[in-house]
């Protein structure tokens, strides 16, 4: 089973379609689909967006192709024109994309660094020994092994968590929390820390930078953040009796404040659509079996449809074939002899496979039987991988085929090996086939 690479555009397109699908499902099933499942669906979409691989699938599928089929022998100007337009476009696109990535990165990184600077100026939250150890114990019970710092700052408006290796919770000094609210906030942030949510947000942010041109990825980012918050709420509220759920909803309300800065890279308590969260908390009922079934089916279906696929054949204009043959006098083992005539045909032909393939066919036809020819070695190299085969040989002709997978150029050489003592292999021909 071999994996094939797919291009960024393809990743973005399929990722976009998956995002649409997940968003629709999410809306259709709303509170009946557990948020953990929704986040699983987002994870599949993220995989498609970030991992440039496609597995071969039993179902034949058509992926995008970038040129139209060319008839055999119709090496016309039309073909050449199409080629130049395409090559011109494909030449600029990577640079455009790169520029976009840089700008997107700046837009993410600069505000983030500024925020980190402010966060670092937070002061330790006043806790006595007993409270501190109770909190540490609570975190430990939840399975968090990293040390968690609790701080307070007058520069933020909602409680938040940042940091991956050494997570820190910062509470706003300007809002005095009651004991109950304090516990709710801690429990909520605790789940963020336990799930490494800050790291997940980084991944989504990276995806945003890479796929800056795809508007659907922004939709996903927004939904993803909301779903993260709802999942933490659900985790907190799951084991609480109904009365305490109302208290938690009250906490959400009373902490509803203006969002702090850039919402993407830290996990804020009440940044995202508080109303939605309160609704989820108060009506969190048993997840519908239908919803779960549909969700699991969606994960599998998306995985099969969009993570796998064999691309359709792609055709390119073939360069005019040129046959070349020459004779060189070689000295082999002390015997002068006419070198074999080497003829090589150059063809860029596509065979079904992974995107496109260059194929070079070379044949070596000795005009005179060389003394003790043991083998003709064909070697090849291309910009990606190559596969060389000797397809035919007898004393008269040695033919080799080299294929470069997804290659832009392929070089192909034939080396004659002889048994004669002390005779070095002689390189007879080296050809380059360019797409």
């Amino acid at each position: 089973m071999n994996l094939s690479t797919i291009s960024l555009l393809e990743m973005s397109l399929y990722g976009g379609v998956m995002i649409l699908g997940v968003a629709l499902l999410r809306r259709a099933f709303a509170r009946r689909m557990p948020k953990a499942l929704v986040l699983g669906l987002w994870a599949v979409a993220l995989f498609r967006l970030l991992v440039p691989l496609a597995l071969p699938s039993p179902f034949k599928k058509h992926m995008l192709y970038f040129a139209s089929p060319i008839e055999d022998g119709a090496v016309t100007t039309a073909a050449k024109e199409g080629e130049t337009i395409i090559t011109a476009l494909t030449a600029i696109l990577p640079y455009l994309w790169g520029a976009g990535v840089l700008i997107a990165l700046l837009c993410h990184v600069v505000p983030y660094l500024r925020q980190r600077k402010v966060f670092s100026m937070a002061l330790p939250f006043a806790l006595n020994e007993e409270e501190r150890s109770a909190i540490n114990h609570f975190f430990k019970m939840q399975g968090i092994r990293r040390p968690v710092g609790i701080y307070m700052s007058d520069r933020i408006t909602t409680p938040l968590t940042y940091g991956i290796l050494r997570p820190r919770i910062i509470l706003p000094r300007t809002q005095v929390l009651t004991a109950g609210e304090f516990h709710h906030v801690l429990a909520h942030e605790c789940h963020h820390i336990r799930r490494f949510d800050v790291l997940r947000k980084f991944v989504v942010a990276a995806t945003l930078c890479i796929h800056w041109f795809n508007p659907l990825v922004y939709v996903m980012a927004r939904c993803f953040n909301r779903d993260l918050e709802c999942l933490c709420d659900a985790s907190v509220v799951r084991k609480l009796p109904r009365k305490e759920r109302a208290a938690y909803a009250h906490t959400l309300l009373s902490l509803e404040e203006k969002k702090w800065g850039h919402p993407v890279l830290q996990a804020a308590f009440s940044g995202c659509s508080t109303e939605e969260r309160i609704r989820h908390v108060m009506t969190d009922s048993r997840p519908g079996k239908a919803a779960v079934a549909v969700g699991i089916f969606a994960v599998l279906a998306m995985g099969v449809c969009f993570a796998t696929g064999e691309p359709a054949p792609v055709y390119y204009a073939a360069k005019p074939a040129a046959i070349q043959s020459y004779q060189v006098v070689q000295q082999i083992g002390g015997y002068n002899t006419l070198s074999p005539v080497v003829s090589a045909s150059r063809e860029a032909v596509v065979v079904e496979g992974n995107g496109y393939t260059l194929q070079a066919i070379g044949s070596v036809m000795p005009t005179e039987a060389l003394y003790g020819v043991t083998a003709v070695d064909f070697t090849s190299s291309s910009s990606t991988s190559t596969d060389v085969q000797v397809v035919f040989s007898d004393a008269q002709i040695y033919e080799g085929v080299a294929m470069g997978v997804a290659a832009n150029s392929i070089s192909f050489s034939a080396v004659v090996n002889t048994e004669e003592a002390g005779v070095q292999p002689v390189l007879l021909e080296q050809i380059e086939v360019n797409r």
Partner: protein
Amino acid sequence: MEIKLFDSELRVMEVLWQEGDQPAGKIAKRLKAEIGWNRNTTYTVIKKCIEKGAILRMEPGFVCRAQIAREEVQRQEANALMDKMFGGSLEQLFAAMVGDKKLSPEEIERLRRLVEDLDK
């Protein structure tokens, strides 16, 4: 002169109010031990204080001197609180502060003298 200081800046001022003039490096070391700030953070906050006019930088050696006294900041904050929460009424602020706290005879005496001074 109204200087508005954030919590982080007040924390640095606290060091100067307690210890007097200090070189910045010493402040950084102390705050690292007390609240875990790294050197860059402390220096950033000190620079902010200098910009706001709360700290004077003296050479050689980047020695910091407080330009505003703790009492002055207390007064400004108390006035702000009074305006914000007590409609500018000192009496209400005072009543809230004293509330149901039991005052010792010495404290009552001192307060009485304070009020008398105000009356003059």
